[in-house]
């Protein structure tokens, strides 16, 4: 039982990271109807931003630790760097293709992804680096005797707060309402005076900053980072977004949690060998049995 609780908790913590990445996939899909395959690499850049910001703030990469406030600053810094990156990717790579066939944009996205991965190898070096210990991981023993780490808890709480903030933005602010309007019908939105390009940029800023935050949180839980680290979490988060219903924001959060939990349980109770295969198995199952995902609605083909 205690082991079950520990596993569940670790699954939630991992799932919350997938959820943050999945939100970016789903939001960008909701607005532009395409999968931004470079999104996992934005997550990687988030982790490296944390790594270098950590060095700038002169923390040793082996054991030293810092206060919550500084960790928070580094989180914000990585989010800012990734939002700029997302904005630049959108402007340079995707915007010129706004009227091109979806396939062209999809291939471009794969190109951007490869560009980030190999530029990363060139600039950061291909070897894994150890992520700075922004916070010391202290064991926390809860009532039932299950031991959980303080860092996975921080990860879960931070991700939950970010998701709540996102929900506030999307549901309560004017720009968030405009995002939902554009996602529903871009022509109608532009006839109301909504600047579609501004909304698209905003979506990339938000989505990419969440991926940046995920990069930091990932580094906190799994402190070995490398330029190709975005590939697998990227694919898993993509599956999470499809599982929840692509384009559906609560769906992406739910999908991320489910994938994280299943992955952790499979690793713990069956075999770590299957860890990375799980997401693909889930993808095949959704596509076979519920292509619209858990919370997604059937898209009415626009005429």
């Amino acid at each position, binding site marked *: 039982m205690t082991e079950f609780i520990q596993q569940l908790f670790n699954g939630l913590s991992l799932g919350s990271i997938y959820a943050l990445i999945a939100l970016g996939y789903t939001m960008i899909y909701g607005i532009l109807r395409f999968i931004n395959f470079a999104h996992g690499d934005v997550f990687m850049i988030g982790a490296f931003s944390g790594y270098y910001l950590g060095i700038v703030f002169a923390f040793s990469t082996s054991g030293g630790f810092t206060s919550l406030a500084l960790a928070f600053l580094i989180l914000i810094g990585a989010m800012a760097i990734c939002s700029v990156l997302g904005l630049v990717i959108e402007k340079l790579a995707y915007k010129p293709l706004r009227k091109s066939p979806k396939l062209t944009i999809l291939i471009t996205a794969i190109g951007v992804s490869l560009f980030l991965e190999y530029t990363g190898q060139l600039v950061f070096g291909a070897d894994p680096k150890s992520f700075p210990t922004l916070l010391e991981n202290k064991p926390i023993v809860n009532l039932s005797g299950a031991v959980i780490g303080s860092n996975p808890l921080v990860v879960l709480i931070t991700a939950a707060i970010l998701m709540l903030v996102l929900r506030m933005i999307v549901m309560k602010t004017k720009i968030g309402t405009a995002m*939902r309007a554009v996602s*529903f*019908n871009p*022509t109608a939105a532009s*006839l109301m*005076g909504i600047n579609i390009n501004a909304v698209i940029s905003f979506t990339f800023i938000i989505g990419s900053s969440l991926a940046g935050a995920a990069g930091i949180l990932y580094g906190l839980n799994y402190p070995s980072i490398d330029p190709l680290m975005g590939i697998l979490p990227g694919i898993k988060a993509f599956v999470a977004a499809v599982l929840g219903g692509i384009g559906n924001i609560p769906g992406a959060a739910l999908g991320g949690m489910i994938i994280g939990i299943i992955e952790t349980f499979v690793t713990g109770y069956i075999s770590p060998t299957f860890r990375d295969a799980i997401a693909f198995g889930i993808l095949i199952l959704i596509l076979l049995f519920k292509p619209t995902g858990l919370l997604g609605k059937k898209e009415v083909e626009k005429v």
Partner: protein
Amino acid sequence: MLRVENLTVNYGAINALKGITINVPEKSIITLIGANGAGKTTTLRAISSVVKSAGGSRIYYEDKDITNLPPHKIVEMGLCQVPEGRLIFANLTVKENLDMGAYLRKDKQNLKNDLDFIFNIFPRLKERIKQPGGTLSGGEQQMLAISRALMSKPKLLLLDEPSLGIAPILVRTIFEKIVEINKSLGTTILLVEQNAHFALSVANFGYVLETGNIILEGPAKELEANPEVRKAYLGEA
């Protein structure tokens, strides 16, 4: 207030508008009537710049050339459209739909008054304020579409077939409201309709569009009396 000169629009090889010229004076109600596929919607879409006008076309609004400006810039200048099929944001509540109409408004302090005006002409909307737009009936959606556009405080309102798919009894109400908006707010109106009878009864001046060309124009009363129009558009044998 609006002058459309030699407007040409092509969809690939399809030449939907073949150089039409329309004039909309301030405070008037001008109607554009024509059969299915005549190019009425295309005209409005070109004015709002959601389709591209071909070379040689010129659209002037308040003496400024607005041809192919970004759509939101045109709304900003006070020209708003109620599109064909209403295009309500089904996933947004009635209130949020109205907020989107007011997207570019800077005078926040007046929004409350404008909402009151709208709820006064369409009381039904007030009762449904928290409901998703997609759950409204066709007639209610048309009211919402008009109200949403009104929230942008337009000086010129483009209406694309407000009678489409609405019970005849409600059509009369909608047309009365259109006249009321024109009279009490002084909003200039360009009304596109297939329902020529209603359109000509409220308009000052009308244009008849046929396969991309204006084939007739004149004061609404004259068009109503014109034997050709009576035969083709007013269902007279």
